[in-house]
């Protein structure tokens, strides 16, 4: 026996009247799951104030952290991916491209800028994971290739910030060949004795790791970033047992000898600046 009786079934609150938290005020840390104010994040180098987790950020945020007064010039804009294979899986590639452009307001998965770090010039190519998983296709390869040419011509050090699921399947062999393209261009940069710093961030995998990401004069990574050739799921399926704790994290790579240093995001700018001065003086 209840005191109150429901006379109409279902939830009747009209969705238009529903009070929702507007987007862009709060954010949840994917690591400690605590809620943080977004404003707090931007003033904290996009680190979780509770657990120091390095949140995934894009090129705009990295440039803001790196370049003096957030001042930089975009170089090599205007390149747009082309559906040369007429590729279609569950969605046509052209649709994926359009949706990604609309969602991210980016041209492709990499943004190249030239600016100054503590007064020293630097060209930085930064990948954006939000654009089709930061996948490397012809545009990414071409912009990196062009940036390397630019660095050689103007004798400016290069930094690439990797954040990628690997090569872009929808461009098949064209994306595979971007590995060869970027690596061979880097061999020219090396011959010209121009420093190249590679920063690996969460996640860096596949063809990106197996080309420019691993080829830095200095290889650094953010704490706890996933850096892999084959992704953990693929490895697990192959060996059919659980993966060891901490497998394929930047700490693991440092231990195995593939990184020079793990750099906390708050020390990133100073660390890069230090490296540049070592090369210069």
């Amino acid at each position, binding site marked *: 026996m209840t005191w109150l009786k429901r006379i109409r079934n279902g939830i009747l609150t009209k969705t238009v009247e529903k009070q929702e938290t507007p987007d862009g005020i709060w954010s949840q840390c994917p690591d400690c799951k605590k809620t943080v104010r977004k404003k707090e994040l931007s003033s904290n180098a996009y680190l979780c104030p509770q657990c120091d987790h390095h949140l995934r950020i894009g090129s705009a945020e990295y440039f803001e952290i790196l370049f003096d007064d957030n001042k930089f010039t975009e170089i090599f804009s205007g390149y747009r991916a082309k559906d040369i294979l007429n590729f279609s899986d569950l969605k046509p590639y052209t649709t994926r491209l359009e949706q990604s452009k609309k969602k991210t307001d980016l041209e492709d998965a990499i943004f190249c800028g030239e600016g100054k770090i503590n007064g020293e010039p630097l060209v930085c190519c930064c990948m954006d994971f939000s654009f089709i998983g930061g996948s490397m296709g012809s545009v990414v390869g071409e912009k990196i290739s062009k940036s390397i040419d630019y660095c050689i011509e103007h004798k400016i050090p290069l930094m690439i910030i990797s954040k990628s699921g690997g090569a872009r399947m929808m461009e098949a062999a064209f994306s595979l060949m*971007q590995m060869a393209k970027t690596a061979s261009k880097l061999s020219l940069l090396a011959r010209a004795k121009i420093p190249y710093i590679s920063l690996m961030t969460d996640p860096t995998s596949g063809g990106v790791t197996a080309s420019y990401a691993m080829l830095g004069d200095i290889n650094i990574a953010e704490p706890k970033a996933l850096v892999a050739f084959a992704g953990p799921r693929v490895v697990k399926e192959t060996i059919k047992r659980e993966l060891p704790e901490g497998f394929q994290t930047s700490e693991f790579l440092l231990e195995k000898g593939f990184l020079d240093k793990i750099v906390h995001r708050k020390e990133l700018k100073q660390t890069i600046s230090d490296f540049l001065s070592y090369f210069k003086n």
Partner: protein
Amino acid sequence: MIFLDFEKPLLDLYDQIEKWQRIGKSKSLDVSDRITDIEHQIENTRKNIYKDLNGWQRVQLSRHPERPYTLFYLSQICDKFTELHGDRNFGDDKAIVGGFGSLDGETVMFIGHQKGSNSKTRQYRNFGMPNPEGYRKALRLMKLAEKFDKPIVCFIDTPGAYPGIEAEERGQAEAIARNLFEMSQLKVPILCIVIGEGASGGALGIGLGDKILMLENTWYSVISPESCSSILWRSWEFKEIAAEQLKLTAKDMTGFGIVDGIIEEPDGGAHHDPEKMAQFIKQRIIKELKELKKLDSEERIDLRIDKYANIGEYDFSE
């Protein structure tokens, strides 16, 4: 003989031959005319089947269990071949083989993926999936070739670089990346030939060169059709469609200008007449190396890097 699903009509004809042979024996009849007739039919049917194969069918052929692998070709095309082992660092990978060989009186450094031909050797060769030490052995041998000014020929045939725990620990990605970087600057000619499967970074890790060729029934792409299907379609069932979508055949790849030429296979594929296939490869290597040797090393390196710099399709507007 092993027949693939699209070779079914051939199987029926071979069965008929067997049937007639049995009849001839038991009834003491002369059935040779009948048999010659069927043999003609087999030849025609084979030509017809092989005239126009689709992507997935070529993927199947590239993995045919009777298909010849690197060491077989080397035994056929070299007057002499001595395998060299180890990366001088960790171990000797069995999925990549290499060594000096004498081809038409000249020394060539041969490097190639190696698969096994029965369950025991397949396991021994890790199904042609190299660990990092395989790529590092390959690089050591390439540097050795460079030191003594000998050209390099790479045979590509892998389902991919091995995705295991130890491979990751020892830096699979770094090993492949390093090879791409170093191969760009090698002073000697590099000729790469896809003889079977050209799967992704595992293939490219010994696949950067002045000239890239593919045998007629091979494939080369960023991912295998099965894995592509599982990632993009979220099911293994779409491998045939994925094979079409990836445009991974020798014809597609030369059309894109990513691969420089095709070496024809005998009717019925390389496995149908391995000796003949080996001779085709040998003649082509001799011809290509002769061309590549005409350039000096600086020119060759410039052309090599330019070739890769030009691969990529995009739209550009200010």
